């Protein structure tokens, strides 16, 4: 299973961190620190796997952003690479050509989307179309609620005039 997902920029800034195994606050900070130090210093064109503390980290770099997923020793590494790329493709579709800034200002969207792809550190949905549809549905639910709220407040405003 995937123990955690980490998106970290080349400067070492965390853009997303999602934990599927129970780590305490302290452990989380330590893991992020140590792992970024290892991943960010790896030269290009090496393999996408790093063995680390009895676990394995599968990572892939997209522009200035590293997508890392930490798995058990005998999990299938390439399957995880596929999940990373699957996630990136969905982000790309959603933001129509995603860039790091999208993920900075819309970090919450990145979390929503990840939740439609992984649960319990395991792949939930492998269809990009299905995930896209679900995210759109969520967005429209939020929109509708917003409109209703503004409608209500305008009614109140009118009534109290």
């Amino acid at each position, binding site marked *: 299973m995937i123990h955690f997902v980490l998106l970290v920029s080349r400067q070492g800034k965390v853009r997303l961190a999602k934990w599927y195994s*129970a780590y305490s606050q302290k452990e989380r900070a330590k893991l992020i620190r140590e792992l970024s130090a290892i991943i960010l210093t790896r030269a290009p064109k090496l393999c996408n796997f790093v063995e680390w503390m009895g676990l394995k980290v599968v990572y892939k770099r997209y522009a200035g952003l590293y997508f890392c997923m930490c798995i058990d020793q005998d999990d299938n590494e390439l399957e995880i690479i596929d999940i990373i790329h699957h996630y990136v493709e969905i982000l790309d579709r959603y933001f129509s050509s995603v860039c790091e800034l999208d993920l900075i200002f819309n970090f919450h969207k990145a979390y929503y989307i990840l939740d439609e792809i992984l649960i319990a550190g395991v792949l939930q949905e492998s269809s990009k179309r299905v995930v896209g549809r679900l995210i759109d549905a969520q967005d429209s639910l939020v929109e509708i609620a917003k409109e209703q709220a503004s409608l209500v407040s305008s009614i109140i405003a009118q009534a109290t005039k």
Partner: protein
Amino acid sequence: MALSGMRGLSVFISDIRNCQNKDQERLRVDKELGNVRTRFKNEKGLTPYEKKKYVWKMLYIYMLGYDVDFGHMEAVSLISAPKYPEKQVGYIVTSCLLNENHDFLRLAINTVRNDIIGRNETFQCLALTMVGNIGGREFAESLAPDVQKLLLSSSCRPLVRKKAALCLLRLYRKNPDVVNVDGWADRMAQLLDERDLGVLTSSMSLLVALVSNHHDSYWSCLPKCVKVLERMARNQDVPQEYTYYGIPSPWLQVKTMRALQYFPTIEDPNTRRSLFEVLQRILMGTDVVKNVNKNNASHAVLFEALALVMHLDAEKEMMSQCVALLGKFIAVREPNIRYLGLENMTRMLMVTDVQDIIKRHQAQIITSLKDPDISIRRRALDLLYGMCDVSNAKDIVEELLQYLSTADFAMREELSLKAAILAEKFAPDLSWYVDVILQLIDKAGDFVSDDIWFRVVQFVTNNEDLQPYAAAKAREYLDKPALHETMVKVSAYLLGEYSHLLARRPGCSPKEIFNIIHEKLPTVSTSTVAILLSTYAKILMHSQPTDLELQNQIWAIFSKYESCIDVELQQRAVEYFALSRKGAALMDILAEMPKFPERQSALIKKAEVAEVDTAEQSAIKLRAQQQQPSNALVVTDQIPNNSPPSVGQLSLVKVPSMSSSVDHNSADPGLTQTNGTLTKEDPQPMSPDLLGDLLGPLAIEGPPGPAAQSEQNVVGGLEGAPGAGDEAAIVPFGEPSTVQPIGNIAERFHALLLKDSGVLYEDPYIQIGIKAEWRGHQGRLVLFLGNKNTAALASVQAIILPPAHLKIELSLVPETIPPRAQVQCPLEVTNLSPSRDVAVLDFSYKFGTNMVNVKLRLPALLNKFLQPINISAEEFFPQWRSLSGPPLKLQEVIRGVRQMSLLEMANLFNSYRMMVCPGLDPNPNNLVASTTFYSVSTRAMLCLTRIETDPADRTQLRMTVASGDPTLTFELKEFIKEQLVSIPTAPRAQAPTPPAPAPTVVQPTSSAAALNDPGALLAGLL
């Protein structure tokens, strides 16, 4: 670029981005945290929108790495908001900020449950996602039935069901009891018929978790998995959106093949054929293409297929295809594929006899040892280590040594340990071994642990032929400038002992040796100085006739250290000085160190400890354990040439002192210390093996002392005398020509009484693992017979001697086990009637000319047929009363109960599957336990037990056992008594059980190699 849709949040993020440095950022963050904190304080004035915004800000700040120690409550409270936008934020932020152990989560359980059972689909999804991501044990207990309902419901849409499947997977991980094995197997099989691939993928992940624990409950899923795989491989009925770079869901394929790896075999020939067709297609049809994503996807499937082929131990045809593929992979440019090629080759080594084919790739693998990528170098090192044997040890070890000088620090320690182990295990001759270790110390002294140089000393001491060579080598190294301190230690020790053997060579007179060693003294630490002092004393003794100048020099050093602040050095100096004045008496006391008793290498043991004890969760892991190689046979070969040392010498060996500063009486504290460290693990042989032990020391060492002691130990082990446990924990070492078990068989047996998988027996050649499943009166055991060697084990025979109450069917055991292979032999057990008798496995095999026969008790005891049952007061008391008096209800006062607290006793009962029911007995010093016993004659029968203890005297108690069957009551009472009186190490030797034999008897029959060995001869006569 899109903005967050929340203005305040976007502004804050921009502010952070505009900060010039870390300090500014911290200021801005602190300001915001202060703001959020005040806003949260008077929560009344907050609109849901604002609350949402602040909670997001908190998460953002948390993500930047700042501590956010407030606001968790607000995040959690959003979960119960009535509207979707707030609820969504509440769920997602909570699952990011908190982990499963957080107290706040408990507050949310009710809301979460309402969302799950409510009719709002979107709320269901949110709740399932959060529980799936951070749900803990409490969630498992309270939500599992609802989640199962959703998964199975035909009215739920796929988007809910797939989440329910993974949510259930999480809950199952937290508490396996939430899934009832009996009820689920059929449902699981139905779930595999699912058409929606999202649901099917999630269900397959659930299945993987379930079968990894209980494969034989899910047999019915096996053909369905193969069907799914066929559907994928033929690309039938796979919607376009579920293909990934033209490949039908690689994830589903990988998961399905993973699930199949947990089934030991595939018996149905049709299913097997279909599966192999698919596998063949994957193996042959995967090409390397330009698109890297497509490559990754197709190879993810390919590597999983390889693993499955390895597991099924397919026809040799397919296996050689796999090796060929891997051979190709380790030479390609693509680093991922190269890495995985090396990794899987290492796994393959553990499975089958492909070593020769893999050896052909040795050059390529050595190239990878110099790869720029440390991940790949690590894999290459592992593979070289695994594939090393006598034929290629020289090449591989020399490569490793060469690489050591350039290797990065992160790898040096592992590298030197591996090189040392390989050199020891596979040395073609001992002088080479000495060379390797000395080079190792020379090149990477900092990474060479004491164990490594102790071991060299041990080898040299035990092999006379080696002594002049080693001394000469040590002398050579002393000429080098800038010597590592460890090298100074070894050289000084070796030259102290054996430099007189070199006396005629140039530069090797006592005086010259002394001078060159003494040069190093100013640069070394006290522990080394201690060794040097011993060396000086020995050199002085060997310089006959006494060289007065040398004597004065050495005496001067001794008298200098007589006032040393270090007690150890001071004592040595004083004693050596006094001794060296005694002239002839010195000769005896400072004579050469006697031979060390043979033992397993501490290094190899160290390497093994890491591997043994891992639960046999996955098939791969189990096989990995089989990989432990033979013990250091190199040493043992030499033994028959050596005459047994005299008793006088032995007494020195027998006094191992960990710290010689305590050991004032010892004639030579310095040397005893060195040897003490070497011998501390097992000064006397301790092994549960009766015959072997009685004969072993007699044959090798002669003196009756250790033999008698070891006999005591054996007896102690049998009776479970307190303290025997500690001693028995020491791993016995292998005798030169008899086969000694590794680890304590009785302990292993006892461990297996409590758990269902583990190692039953192990010796240098074979490891017998066991995995058991119990259901009602039936059990299914699988014996894993693993050959640890590079040669086949022949004449393998396994006979079960079942007691009258057990029906045991053993499937066919193959006569030979190929090198490094593992065979599985399933056993079907049926419990006919209650009895405490034990089934015995009579196992024998032949390795070379050694015939080994062991009798092992099988952990199929009474308690395995118990099923704990929780019973309420309303059920208990009528039952208890209705079973009135003997023979259905028996009472006994038991004395000599082992010291344990009430809680420990309760745990003991629970671990033997008798459930302690608290609250039934008003007296807190009493325990009541209930369980159901299954056998053919009794069917399922309730058994009740009550223990009354006296808090003032814990060594005695009164026990009452009741059941509906007189035999059962009696047998259960006796069983519990045995566990109470002697746990955990004691086998039931004193129990009046007829067929229980002595724990094990290893009978070495005569062999050509052992002709010189009186022990073996004796054994042959017996």
